[in-house]
């Protein structure tokens, strides 16, 4: 094993050098880094739009920008965040980096497809940026016709095509992960020895491969409708505008699970690592991921309770949506009970995991509110919905993503970041997040509609609180950029296993060599086989927790 205070002589970051070696790399870890750069860029762009939205809403009059500009701002915020950050972030960055190492493989099954997926993702992003520069788009990220097809004068075509192209990046990643998990597991790595992160990524891949083609077709239909007036969604030609909503949500509701499942997968790793204990109910948690992925395809109609859908369809979708709460609750209870009799260390990534549980519980339970037919009618398309999905998307997905990034950062770079600044940013994110989005639940209950540029004066106090929270949240998001960059130069050398965690990724050097392991690993234990030092010595391997 290498010395404690220096990086290994050769690792994946310095094995080859030059821009070309990065742009043509087939190494899943480097592709993970490429994704990190891409999604970070789009996240900062999406955040800038969000900040402008919040600034406009500081006053009720709608005086900072024109209504038209405001409509562009929330649309571009939604499009960049959903399609170019939330969907690709965890699979693209953490999945690419960690999944092959965690199953003991030297790479993914199709390294060239993996690189292609990044280029497809960036092409989709650049097309969307082109749309942004040639006038932007003002339809909302949901692109509902007939507004998007017949009335909007904005750049719907380039953006629609950009999102369409980006979908193929998801499909490529999904196919790659599925084949990798089936075919590339190390000897002894049976399905029920897989870390739960891998189960979660597998369930996500399933949704990406099965769901994304539907949104691709839907966007093609929208483009044909707008450019050539096909009439799929035009009532005057015998089409049906609500048909688009069915097709769109058939993908976009499962897409919510594309965003949250990988984050849940990260949380399982963090909880096990920082409680030094096997996840409670491993199989229940694994099957809950698959359960959520499958049920996710059967609930799209809950977006249409007030869209003229039949009352009976509403009832069926409400019932099915309620069932999603069950695997979600199973996961939350199992994580909670993993802490029971654990050896819990409140390190930085663990704070994110605990924050995730709290916020996801609120996000999930308010999902039950919205699934409840009689209540949804009142808050449908109000700020209650906005608050709910930000609790799931930001409180869930982003907390999980940041937790995972802080957990694997020493593995990715070989160096530690400042724990003080890490914890400071974690607290700022948690407090800022709640201050931003909790008032929005109250606004929604009072009836404030979403996508409003101006609003009645009685709602100003809650809006001011929300904008203040967004500012705190913004600082919380900028800080990691600073201390992560700082750690690359000046961070303490992490060593192979800084957290004392179990899992194949902690048995190789930090950063790992290009093909991940000096000798191909053979797996003889369950996942998360934390054992006492005495048991370890008896088994003849170094105990967990020493480094």
């Amino acid at each position, binding site marked *: 094993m290498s010395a404690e205070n220096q990086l290994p002589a050769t690792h994946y970051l310095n094995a080859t050098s030059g821009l070309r070696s990065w742009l043509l790399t087939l190494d899943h870890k480097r592709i993970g880094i490429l994704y990190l750069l891409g999604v970070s860029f789009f996240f900062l762009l999406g955040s800038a739009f969000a900040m402008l939205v919040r600034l406009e809403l500081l006053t009720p009059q709608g005086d900072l920008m024109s*209504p*038209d500009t405001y409509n562009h701002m929330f649309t571009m915020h939604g499009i960049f965040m959903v399609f170019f950050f939330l969907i690709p972030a965890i699979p693209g960055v953490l999945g690419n980096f960690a999944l092959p190492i965690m199953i003991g493989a030297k790479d993914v099954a199709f390294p060239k497809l993996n690189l292609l997926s990044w280029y497809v993702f960036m092409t989709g992003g650049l097309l969307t940026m082109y749309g942004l520069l040639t006038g932007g788009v003002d*339809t909302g990220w949901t692109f*509902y016709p*007939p*507004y998007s097809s017949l009335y909007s004068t904005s750049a719907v075509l380039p953006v629609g095509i950009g999102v369409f192209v980006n979908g193929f990046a998801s499909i490529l990643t999904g196919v790659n992960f599925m084949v990798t998990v089936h075919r590339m597991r190390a000897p002894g790595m049976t399905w029920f020895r897989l870390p739960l992160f891998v189960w979660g990524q597998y369930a996500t891949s399933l949704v990406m491969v099965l769901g994304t083609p539907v949104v691709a077709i839907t966007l093609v239909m929208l483009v044909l409708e707008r450019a050539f007036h096909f009439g799929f969604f035009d*009532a*005057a030609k015998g089409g049906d*505008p*609500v048909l688009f909503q069915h097709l769109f949500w058939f993908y976009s509701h499962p897409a919510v699970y594309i965003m949250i499942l990988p984050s849940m997968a990260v949380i399982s790793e963090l909880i096990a690592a920082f*409680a*030094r*204990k*096997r*996840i*409670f*109910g491993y199989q229940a948690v694994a099957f809950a991921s698959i359960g959520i992925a499958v049920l996710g395809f059967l609930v799209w109609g809950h977006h249409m309770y*007030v869209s*003229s859908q039949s*009352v009976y369809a509403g009832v069926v979708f409400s*019932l099915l949506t*309620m069932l999603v709460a069950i695997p979600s*609750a*199973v996961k*939350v*209870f*199992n994580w*909670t*009970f993993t*802490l*029971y009799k654990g*050896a*819990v*260390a409140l390190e930085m990534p663990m704070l994110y995991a*605990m924050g995730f549980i*709290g916020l996801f519980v*609120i996000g999930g*339970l308010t999902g*039950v509110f919205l699934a*409840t*037919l*009689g*209540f949804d*009618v*009142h808050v*449908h398309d*109000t700020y209650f919905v906005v608050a709910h999905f930000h609790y799931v998307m930001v409180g869930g997905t982003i907390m999980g993503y940041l937790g995972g990034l802080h957990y694997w950062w020493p593995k990715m770079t070989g160096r530690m970041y400042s724990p003080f600044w890490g914890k400071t940013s974690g607290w700022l994110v948690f407090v800022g997040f709640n201050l931003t989005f909790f008032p929005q639940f*109250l606004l929604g*209950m*009072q*009836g404030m*509609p979403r*996508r*409003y540029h101006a*609003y009645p004066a009685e709602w100003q106090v809650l809006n001011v609180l929300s904008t203040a929270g967004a500012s705190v949240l913004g600082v919380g998001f900028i800080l990691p950029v600073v201390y992560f960059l700082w750690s690359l130069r000046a961070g303490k050398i992490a060593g192979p296993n800084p957290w*004392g965690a179990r899992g194949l990724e902690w048995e190789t050097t930090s950063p790992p060599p290009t093909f991940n392991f000096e000798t191909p690993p053979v797996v003889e234990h369950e996942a998360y086989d*934390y054992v006492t030092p005495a048991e370890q010595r008896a088994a003849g391997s170094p*105990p967990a*927790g*020493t480094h």
Partner: protein
Amino acid sequence: MPFRLPFFPEQASSFAHEVDALTLWLVGMAAFFTVLIAALVLVFALKYRRRSPDQVGTRFDESPLLEIVWTVIPLVVVLFTFAWGAKVYFRLYRPPAGAVEYHVTGKQWMWKTQHPTGQRELNELHLPVGQPTKLLMTSEDVIHSFFVPAFRVKADVLPGRYTTMWFTPTKPGRYHLFCTEYCGAEHSRMIGWITVQEPEEYQRWLASVPVAATLAEQGAGVFARLGCRECHAAGSEAAPALAGLYGREVLLASGASVRADENYLRESLLDPEAKVVAGFDAAMSTYRGQLSEEEILALIGYLKSLPAPSTADVAAPAESVMR
């Protein structure tokens, strides 16, 4: 009244208490589980915190009993919630037979409303308190959504078809009306007011608004202008009679049958070949593009006002049935 939730708008319709009672249950249930989970996480994290760097957790990771408990309890809770929500929803979307019908047309970026007595308003709707009220709504352009927070009701307003909502205002006052489906640049200005008045006051208000004809009379005018009677006279062999058609089951040439509701009447005007009545040829040409949404609504209002001929004198001319 039983209770009023903080942060909730005024309760001004017959649904408000029902929706708020459901909300109270949801908030209580969510608060219970949130506090439970947060407390367990914090207590476990502090009680079992790591005391030495080498310490690992005690192995305890399986309990079928616990798994069953935290599967079954949430299942029971959500099924109960589902049933309660569905019950309220059915009431919300099923107007009673006696509800008085008003027409709403959405258009970028305004709400046009019309009373059964013919009065028109813009971004306003006056209603008498205590009257079961049904709105028949359509859009001239994109999708809008009609939302009155104080009534706890909402329904999308779509181009090319009718949607309905109903409620009984229970309290005089002025209540916000919002468009809640994003509809373009001035979406946030597509707002208005519902004014609920005592019945006598409402009558005085109606009398103060000049109106040439009731809705049905306006529709009768359109009917005459278009010459509909040439084919649709009672007993005609060219086209089906229209008196008493509304609400009836109609047997189609295809063998299927359809209920003659507003959407059917609208479709038969604009796309007459879509559902041809059994026993007739598809002889009618479309009126698409020749009628405004308001004229179509007036025409449908007129058709609905025609009473059904009694079974004894089906062959009698419509005029005689109408007196």
